[in-house]
């Protein structure tokens, strides 16, 4: 009986399959097919009238928070964003229906990737019950139709292991690196500027940013600045300049995001504490790091 209880509580997951991860043909296939799953156009210019880039960010941030709170698998959020972008690149959508679309995309991505997927009811609660389960189910069909039922899209997460495996990285740091890469990938998915980039480029740029951010490049010569970029570019057949630009863009997004986060936090603190502690806050602010590497890594 005890054994049964334990089994019921743990998440059953497959071990990494060396047949999939050690075979270069898999990486090559991923690189070949990834373009098929990109949104067809920059939709804020050519399709959408009612919604704007900042609304995509709002819905993306909300989706990420839900995925985090529900402890979804890492690839659920980027995959859901892929569905959202592909849908929005073909269907003009009204602002008031955007959160419903976000919920539907999470619903689908979760069902595809998880053993215990998010339920329709739970997702509706997260919209503060502004949508109803039957609406979610109806729109699930519509979204599936527009995506032509092609749900197994390639995401940046699919490339992480393939890239990391080919780099001379310290074994004991791998988990840390993976987690950082996943965080960068999620961050990119919240930013529309990355929506048209091939997933392999986002993955490669994120690995580069993670290694630089963790200053792992101080240990191995081949991981120094340009060496690292060249090595990464070779792995995913990306052009060095393009990759470099992508990595810098990712680092910029991170810094802006952290800066914005700090601003929000301070605003909140000041509201909570009143003007009395303002001097203290300022002091604190001046000591907060601005460089990525200074961020508590």
């Amino acid at each position, binding site marked *: 009986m005890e054994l049964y209880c334990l089994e019921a509580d743990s998440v059953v997951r497959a071990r990494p399959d060396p047949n999939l991860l050690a075979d270069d043909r898999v990486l090559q296939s991923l690189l070949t097919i990834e373009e098929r799953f990109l949104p067809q156009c920059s939709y804020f210019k050519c399709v959408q009238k009612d919604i704007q880039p900042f609304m995509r960010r709002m819905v993306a941030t*909300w989706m990420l*928070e839900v995925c985090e709170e529900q402890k979804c698998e890492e690839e659920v959020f980027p995959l859901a964003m892929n569905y959202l972008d592909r849908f929005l690149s073909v269907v003009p959508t009204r602002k008031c229906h955007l959160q419903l679309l976000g919920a539907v995309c999470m619903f689908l991505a979760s069902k595809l990737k998880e053993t215990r997927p998010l339920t329709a009811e739970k997702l509706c609660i997260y919209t503060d019950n502004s949508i109803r389960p039957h609406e979610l189910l109806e729109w699930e069909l519509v979204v599936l139709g527009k995506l032509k039922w092609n749900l197994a899209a390639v995401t940046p997460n699919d490339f992480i292991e393939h890239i990391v495996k080919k780099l001379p990285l310290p074994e004991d740091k791998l988990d840390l690196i993976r987690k*950082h890469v996943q965080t960068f990938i999620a961050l990119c998915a919240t930013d529309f500027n990355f929506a048209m980039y091939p997933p392999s480029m986002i993955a490669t740029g994120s690995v580069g940013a993670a290694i630089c951010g963790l200053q792992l490049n101080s240990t191995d010569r081949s991981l120094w600045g340009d060496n690292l970029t060249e090595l990464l570019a070779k792995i995913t057949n990306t052009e060095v300049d393009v990759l470099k630009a992508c990595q810098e863009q990712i680092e910029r997004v991170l810094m802006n995001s952290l800066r914005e986060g700090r601003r929000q936090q301070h605003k909140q603190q000041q509201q909570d504490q009143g003007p009395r502690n303002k001097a203290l806050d300022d002091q604190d602010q001046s000591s907060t790091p601005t460089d990525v590497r200074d961020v508590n890594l």
Partner: protein
Amino acid sequence: MCKIMSFHKRVLRSLGNGPARRNLFGPVDREQLQAEYRDALRKDVEDASRRWGFDFVSEKPLQGGDFQWEGVPGARVPALYRSCIVGEEPVPQREESTSAVTITRGPTRPIIGKENVPTTPERYSGAPQNLEKTPEKNNPLKRKQTNITDFYQAKRRVVATPRKSGQ
């Protein structure tokens, strides 16, 4: 582990604001939503009709399609595809996804193939004779990918598709 979480949490916190449970863009326009939903489904059915050369509403093959439709008796298709009503009312979308004709046990001979449509097997759809053969039109295009509907198919002679299923 602690270090891992701090970076991740920090980035997350910088993005998030307040509780995850929230309504982002105000009230949903339910009427509009329903209208758009119906509209989208109708368009899906129309697309499918064009693609398969089959009218899923009246359940009859269309003239000049790429497919030749042939009726088979309901008893010959696997049990999985025979009509049965489980639980609730069928959703309209079902018809679109079946892309085949309902089974009938016609008086003279069996008429049309395939019944995934949850209706009674006794349903009779008319014009059985000319359903059998549509004009020969050999499209050299071979389909690249199998569709779920391939397996629903009771029998089909010409296999061709006007457009790719990929996006």
